[in-house]
């Protein structure tokens, strides 16, 4: 720990070179489960475009045949044409109705899946990743990037298909109506192709910049609001404002560029459409005058042209939403593509069954019963660190090669100056990190072969920071064991001395920790952490500075409870207050990543080593 790593945010932000392909693959994998729905939607798209295309045909029919015949006294053709036209209108309304719903439902299903997938993957990523990345960055993946994807899925995927298909239909109709005129229309596609190609290139870059810059803004926002106490106490407001302005300016510029890119794209597309329309009128008029085509055909042609280029605007829009969404998807794909660092085993090995008679009778039960721990509940497991060496990436060794065996049921105190490597060691035992070399095993099973759920139910760590999640206090204690009954929750709170405080809160155990009266002091939050351990009932307990915020009487109360609960369990305790050592069987003193002393407290205190000194110093501070 002596050389902490840099916060390499920019490194985290870098996208792998093949990310565009990965984003596409991600999109495809999301859409694939909905293929039957996609087929259904495709049918609806076909039908919708058919009705949209066919409408003008009936009108042309009405104008060309219906009216002359009606004038001549026979309204049958006209009535038929109009009836069909209305029928097609009703059909297209019904189809639009159905499609809107189905698209909404499907798009939301996809978004739900994607959100969930990102969430679980982020949870799986190792602590190393989280320490390098900022929460704001991951929040931006789940919020603004997700919004971008959602916009595309709900507004564009269907529209794009519809627009394309409609154009195909209209193209066919145009050919049927009049080949020479149709050729004029198709000629317009040559410039459109080049316009689209150019837009693809410029817009891609612009949208990537918007995604990156808004993520920075979000990171800054989250950090400022999260540290608002320091911001206000140190009068950082002008400074924070300046940074926001700087980052937001980058976002504004990127956004302006992207929007202006759309302006060019849309403008050119419209121009091509309009020029084509003019050419059609000229050529069409000429053909009609020459008698090669009928007025109705020309009228229909002009109507179709509107319908033909109308979708083009739609496509321009969709194209841009797609660009924006794919830039966002790239960011999301990069998160999903990150290696979890501590990978799950392909073939998990189960832990051997407990040998003790008591089995996992439960700490909470023991607590509920009283203080006299029953000797039968031996549930500890042995921990072996063999040939272990640890370094971050290619950095220097944080923990040089060492061996350590902690027998089942032993309580070990880990002592040493800040940065001696204590936290790193316990992070190996809890598999927050994997060792660079060697193995860490629990009852002989390599942690890397253990199923995560089994590992976590067996080994639990409490850290100095005690985070509370939105919800009630009972919910927060239940993080230790979601299945715990109310009585067990109360028993756990009583055991650590948290119960009296909770009783004083407006709604007791049901008080929302983030709302009305739910403010807990840091000491009380630590008690919540302990209560969680009591519910979790693990084989191995790791406490990393878990009592730092407690006053001495509270700490003693916790220790008393711990003494009961740790009976028979394996425990590793890091604490600067040596009072903790009182309950330890063994003390390890660490310095610069090495274990320099190892023995029972009595042995070490009696000796002349570092621990003896520390202990004397500590005793002197007592009264």
């Amino acid at each position, binding site marked *: 720990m002596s050389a902490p790593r840099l916060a390499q945010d920019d490194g985290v932000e870098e996208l792998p070179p093949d990310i565009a392909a990965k984003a596409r693959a991600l999109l495809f994998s999301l859409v694939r489960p909905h293929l039957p729905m996609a087929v259904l939607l495709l049918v609806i798209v076909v039908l919708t475009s058919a009705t949209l295309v066919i409408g003008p045909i009936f009108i042309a029919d009405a104008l060309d045949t219906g009216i002359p015949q009606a004038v001549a006294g026979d309204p049958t053709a006209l009535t038929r044409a109009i009836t069909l036209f209305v029928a097609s209108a009703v059909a297209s309304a*019904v189809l639009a109705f159905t499609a809107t719903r189905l698209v909404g439902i499907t798009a939301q299903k996809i978004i739900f899946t994607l959100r969930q997938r990102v969430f679980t993957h982020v949870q799986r990523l190792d602590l190393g990743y989280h320490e*390098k990345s900022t929460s704001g960055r991951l929040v931006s993946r*789940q919020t603004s990037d997700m919004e971008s994807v959602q916009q595309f899925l709900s507004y564009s995927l269907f529209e794009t298909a519809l627009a394309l298909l409609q154009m195909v239909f209209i193209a066919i109709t145009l050919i049927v109506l009049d080949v020479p005129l149709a050729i004029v229309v198709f000629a317009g596609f040559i410039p459109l192709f080049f316009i689209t190609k150019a837009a693809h290139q410029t817009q891609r870059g612009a949208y990537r910049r918007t995604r990156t810059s808004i993520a920075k803004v979000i990171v800054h926002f989250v950090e400022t609001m999260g540290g608002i*106490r320091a911001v*206000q106490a*140190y009068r950082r407001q002008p400074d924070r404002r300046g940074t926001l302005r700087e980052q937001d300016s980058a976002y504004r510029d990127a*956004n302006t560029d992207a929007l202006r890119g759309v302006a060019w794209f849309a403008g050119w597309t*419209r121009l091509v459409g309009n020029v084509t329309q003019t050419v059609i009128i000229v050529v069409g008029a000429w053909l009609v005058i020459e008698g090669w085509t009928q007025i109705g055909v020309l009228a229909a042609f002009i109507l179709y042209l509107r319908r033909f280029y109308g979708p083009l605007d739609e496509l321009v829009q969709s194209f841009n939403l797609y660009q924006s969404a794919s830039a966002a998807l790239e960011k999301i794909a990069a998160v999903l593509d990150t290696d979890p660092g501590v990978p799950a085993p392909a073939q998990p090995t189960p832990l051997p069954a407990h040998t003790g008679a008591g089995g996992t009778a439960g700490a909470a039960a023991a607590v509920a019963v009283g203080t006299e721990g029953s000797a039968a509940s031996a549930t500890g497991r042995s921990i072996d660190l063999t040939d272990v060496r640890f370094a971050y990436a290619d950095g220097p060794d944080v923990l040089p090669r060492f061996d350590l065996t902690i027998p089942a049921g032993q309580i070990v105190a880990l002592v040493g100056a800040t940065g001696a490597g204590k936290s790193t060691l316990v992070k190996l035992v809890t598999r927050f990190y994997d060792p660079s070399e060697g193995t860490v095993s629990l009852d002989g099973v390599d942690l890397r072969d253990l199923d995560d759920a089994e590992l976590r139910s067996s080994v639990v760590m409490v850290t100095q920071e005690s*985070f509370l999640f939105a919800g009630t206090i009972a919910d927060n204690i239940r993080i230790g064991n979601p299945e715990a009954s109310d009585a067990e929750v109360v028993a756990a709170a009583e055991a650590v001395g948290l119960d009296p405080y909770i009783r004083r809160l407006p709604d007791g155990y049901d008080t929302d920790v983030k709302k009305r009266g739910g403010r807990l002091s840091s000491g009380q939050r630590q008690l919540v952490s302990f209560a969680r351990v009591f519910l979790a009932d693990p084989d191995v307990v790791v406490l990393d500075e878990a009592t730092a915020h407690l006053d*001495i009487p509270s700490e003693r109360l916790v220790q008393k409870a711990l003494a009961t609960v740790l009976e028979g369990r394996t425990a590793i305790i890091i604490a600067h207050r040596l009072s903790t050592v009182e309950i330890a069987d063994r003390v390890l003193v660490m310095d610069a990543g090495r274990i320099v002393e190892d023995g029972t407290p009595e042995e070490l205190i009696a000796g002349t080593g570092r621990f003896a000194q520390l202990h004397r110093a500590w005793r002197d501070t007592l009264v």
Partner: protein
Amino acid sequence: MFVRPLLRFWPDLRARIGIYLVVLVLTLLANGIQLIVPVITGYIIDGPITSGDLSGLWLPVLGVLGIGIAEAVALWARRMIVAPVVSTWEIRWRARLFDRLQYTSVAIHDSWESGQLLSRATNDLSQLRRFFAFGLPFLLATPIVIIVGTIMLTVLQPVFGLIMLVMAVPTILAVAMFERRYRETSRQSQDAVGEITTDVEESIQGIRILKSFGRSPWAAERFSVLSRKFQRLEVRKAKLDSWFWSVLILLPTLAQAAIVGIGTFGVVQGWTTIGTVVAGVTISMVLRMPIEMLGFLLADAIMSITAAGRYWEVIDIRHDITDAAGGIDDDPDVGRHRGELVFDDVDFHFSDTDRLTLAGLDLTIEPGQTLALVGTTGSGKTTLASLVPRLQDVTGGAVRIDGVDIRDLPVNELRHLVSVSFEDPILFSASVRDNVVMGAPGSDDDAVWQALEITAANDFVSRLPEGLDTQVGEQGLSLSGGQRQRLALARAVIGKPRILVLDDPLSAVDVDTEDRVQLKLREILPDSTTLIIAHRPSTAALADVVAVLDEGRIVAQGTHEELLETSPLYRELMGAGMQATASARGEGATASAGNRPTEGGPA
């Protein structure tokens, strides 16, 4: 009126009204211009084509071409012009929101879910940006286009105009039905985005706990409930959309059918021509797009009203901790102060409860004195500390510095005088130097090193890969707890503040180091009035005076030794008589004294 949240953006709009009007006109132009094309087309069909006069074709065709080019240019120009305007608005609104929140008191911050603030600053503002770029101009232009189209139809043939008017009735009815339900759903949905954001933030910030307990599946389940809720609301919106859109697709088509039918009847009867019917149908065809678009525009407008409402809710947050004149001056003049800190009959309760956290608390700290405040967990120590820099305000009595009620000082003069170190160290994503210098902007490296030396952080900082330039990550996560605390403490002591408030600043540091830090503090900052919250006897012993906080008031005060004599509570807090060393588990341990209250465990 429910559009009020949008109307409140008028000052921003007015400031750029010239350019926005140009945008509006261009929108109208781009949308309306195509209405003319059918008229010309009708003229071409009835005129040159019918009469076979090719030469008569050129003028109207040039017109069509000119209009086509004009339309494309208008489209291009509108987007070009509006892009920087709305992008600038978005970031200006965000800056306003950000600034409002920066000066909002901590108590109010705590009452907001963090995600609700972030979602307002991002999702809602990008919704508003889109609305002002497209939604609003189109919402204003589209009805005009429809009206003009209807007038053109009327001029062309009054009966056609009448048909359009008849069709407007069910459209308006549909809008009325749709609006309220859509508004409610949209509000719920946007609130759900905030909840999702909060949950994502928590699940990342609490990742160690989730991992420690293997509760990631539990968190994922929790998250899925929220995202399921959002999904449901969005689907409900889609269903409302589906009703509205199908109506808006159907009605203009029916109008078209009526025009053809009745038009033909007119041709038969001789009161209109085929050319007129063609023109009429074409105009109504052009009108279909704007009418269909109305559905989208209204939905967009409603979402924007919701977004605007959510934005103003934050902007309207009352600032309760301000300078006497209101507002907070960023850089007020700082007068000379001796640094006497007095709590005078201070009451404090949180805004949502009557239960007093601090009740009639009196405490005086002389200039230059160091007072250690001790008390049980939850006795109100942190609350007391937060009153000094006015992160919270007293609800009764007063805190005075040199006899002046701190509420009469400019907030930032006070915060200049008072330096705080929090129990949860807050480091920002910046270099070590920047993080420390925050305490006294403008300090040079010597001052930084001195501060680091006081807090015994110089050793590890000098071993950092880039020394003072080393970036410490978000909340300094890549440093250990003790290292973070010492950097945060260095920030508090740099610049030798008049008053130091240290809330359990070294809880994660070993006793040895803590002692060193304390001695340094006294040596280098002898003139700073110091309030230090402590748990350890060693800390208390080094203070000039110790005060014991219990149940919201000071129950004992004196030197460490005095209190050990006189205060049973203090003795208990200091673990007096409990120095029983060795192991409670080890047989024959040197356990002394029988007054140990924690005689549990295996005997």
